[in-house]
């Protein structure tokens, strides 16, 4: 088990070098002038220096492999560079934005996974009956609605008309409280920090801001999980060992919960794992629609402005996350399926 984990972690640097190299190659397709454009905020800055001066200043005249080595050298010193688009060091930008994304992912994953499994179970139990068609149609509509459309509808109804679920992460008054020195930021997640600081009012405000993006994400993903759960349940229902369970004289409820559902959950767990990964990587569109300042929005803004230090930093971070979460999913896989051996 431990050797398995160690061996998997040995791959981590390989993956990270691979992904950053890829980003660097893509970046080297851009001319130094394009790359330097991100540093120029206004035409005023070009009065005293030429573009070539700036290119030289930021080392963009050097060949790509030299720049990559320099970047690597800094990386080993723990320096990811300065992000112009976020106006702060890349490391700090990630550290600030990632908790917001974790928070959204944590709040989304429960309704997404359990809702999807629940709908899938209903569908499978009522295979080809009206309830099955109903839950599938409901889920497919969510899948087909683009998230920026559904998100905007939610925003229109629940913010514009009803005023219940505002965009952003906190209301103005709560934001002011959070930014004061008395409010300790333990985790960077507003809901957790507010409770630790004994401020239920801020907790409630944070939750209000989370509900709409969570609903958008949940409705988007339900169809996917429903389909996996449904087909997996239907497959397991016809397995011989389910017939064996009936032969034992178990009640239908025990057969369904202990034998069918437990076995049907194996593929569902795999899919859920990659879904969590997707959520943690940031959901650009949902974060944009709801002006939710997570890592997805950060990366998207950086990409738009050719802020390559930021992009490299987030790529590195996301690559690391990918390897680690996949490892966790594989470990969990061995827990739920005894046939899987980690070697």
């Amino acid at each position: 088990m431990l050797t398995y984990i160690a061996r998997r972690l040995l791959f981590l640097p390989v993956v990270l070098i691979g992904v950053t190299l890829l980003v660097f190659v893509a970046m080297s397709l851009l001319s130094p002038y394009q790359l330097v454009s991100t540093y120029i905020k206004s035409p005023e800055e070009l009065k005293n220096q030429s573009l070539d001066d700036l290119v030289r200043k930021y080392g963009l005249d050097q060949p790509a492999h030299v720049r990559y080595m320099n970047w690597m050298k800094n990386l080993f010193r723990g320096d990811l560079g300065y992000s112009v688009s976020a106006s702060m060091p890349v490391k700090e930008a990630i550290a600030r934005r990632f908790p917001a994304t974790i928070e959204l992912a944590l709040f989304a994953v429960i309704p997404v996974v359990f809702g999807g499994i629940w709908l899938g179970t209903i569908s499978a139990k009522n295979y080809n009956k009206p309830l099955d068609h109903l839950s599938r149609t409901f889920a497919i509509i969510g899948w087909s609605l683009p998230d920026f459309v559904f998100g905007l509808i939610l925003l229109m109804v629940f913010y514009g008309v009803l005023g219940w679920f505002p965009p952003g992460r906190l209301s103005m008054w709560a934001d002011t409280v959070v930014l004061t020195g008395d409010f300790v930021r333990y985790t960077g997640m507003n809901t957790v920090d507010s409770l630790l600081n004994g401020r239920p009012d801020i907790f409630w405000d944070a939750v209000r801001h989370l509900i709409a993006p969570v609903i958008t994400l949940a409705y988007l993903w339900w169809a996917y999980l429903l389909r996996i759960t449904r087909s997996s349940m239907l497959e397991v229902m016809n397995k011989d060992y389910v017939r064996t369970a009936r032969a034992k004289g178990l009640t239908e409820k025990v057969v369904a919960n202990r034998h069918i559902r437990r076995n049907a959950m194996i593929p569902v767990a795999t899919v859920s794992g990659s879904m969590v990964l997707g959520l943690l990587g940031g959901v650009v569109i949902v974060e944009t629609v709801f002006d939710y300042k997570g890592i997805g929005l950060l990366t998207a803004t950086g990409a738009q402005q050719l802020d390559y230090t930021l992009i490299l930093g987030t790529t590195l971070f996301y690559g690391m996350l990918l390897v680690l979460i996949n490892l966790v999913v594989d470990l969990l896989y061995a827990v739920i399926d005894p046939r899987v051996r980690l070697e």
Partner: protein
Amino acid sequence: MTTPKGDPILLKVEGLRKHFPITKGLFRRTVGYVKAVDDVSFQVRRGETLGVVGESGCGKTTMGLSIVQLVQPTSGRIQLSDNGGWMEVNSKTIRHLRDKMQIVFQDPFSSLDPRMRIRDIVAEPLQAHGMKNRRQRYERVETLLEAVGLGSHHMNRFPHEFSGGQRQRIGIARALSLNPSLVVCDEPVSALDVSVQAQVLNLLDDLQKEFGLTYLFVAHDLSVVQHISDRVAVMYLGRIVEMGEVDPLFLYPKHPYTEALLSAIPDPDPDVVGEQIILQGDVPSPADPPPGCHFHPRCRYATERCRQEAPELADLDGTEHFVACHHAQDLDLTGVSTRATA
């Protein structure tokens, strides 16, 4: 009625039918039925082994499964002897009869829940039938595993850690956990290697003696059936065509289909020049069986009467040897030992 003599009767099956609807089109209209089991009646005596043979698709497995209600029969009456009285076996009563009639499945690889430990697989029926004490359950599991030739160190393992033969032993232990009187064996050895087959068959034999079990043994392998059965029923297209004590039936078959089946048994003696009866054509579809005797299109003795009139299963000479053939008394058929020796 087909009443065997001797030991008291344990199981009565009367007019058992299982018809699977065939649906077609957008609205799943029923356009016909596959008559997998079509009016089958027989009785099983306590302590005996009734072998059921027939080729693939003749309905023998469906029959076995309908008796234990894992397939819901279309019609028919199944009764199980219980303390001198008769218990009706149907979908409502079956859950409380599972401790009296159990089943060993064909495929030991797919019939054990892959996520359960052996001790739980075997103990689960005990729990379902009211043995609340966990330690008591596991003690019983230990005894059972020993009875089928496995050890208590196997209890904590998962099914995938066992070979086919071992898995089938687990399946047998599970079936015996509730002390049933009747065990339906649905081709219990057909998924196993020949060497392992023999071990499992001998185990079944030993367990029968030890626990006084009654077997309904479904198989397509004639040598297996000959080895294990006291009586044999031969099925063709959902019906029993011949039934009787194993030796008379194998030596002096009375139905042309039985004769053809027996001629297919390979003889270990190379000097024996057996006449291989090659049946013409395929088995007719059970959705559209031929009129009259179901076997007539492939029967070399068929006459006009066979094409029109379906024969009844009847005991012709009072020897408990039942046969469904119009010409049973006129024909002189070849059994296993009456083959010509060159």
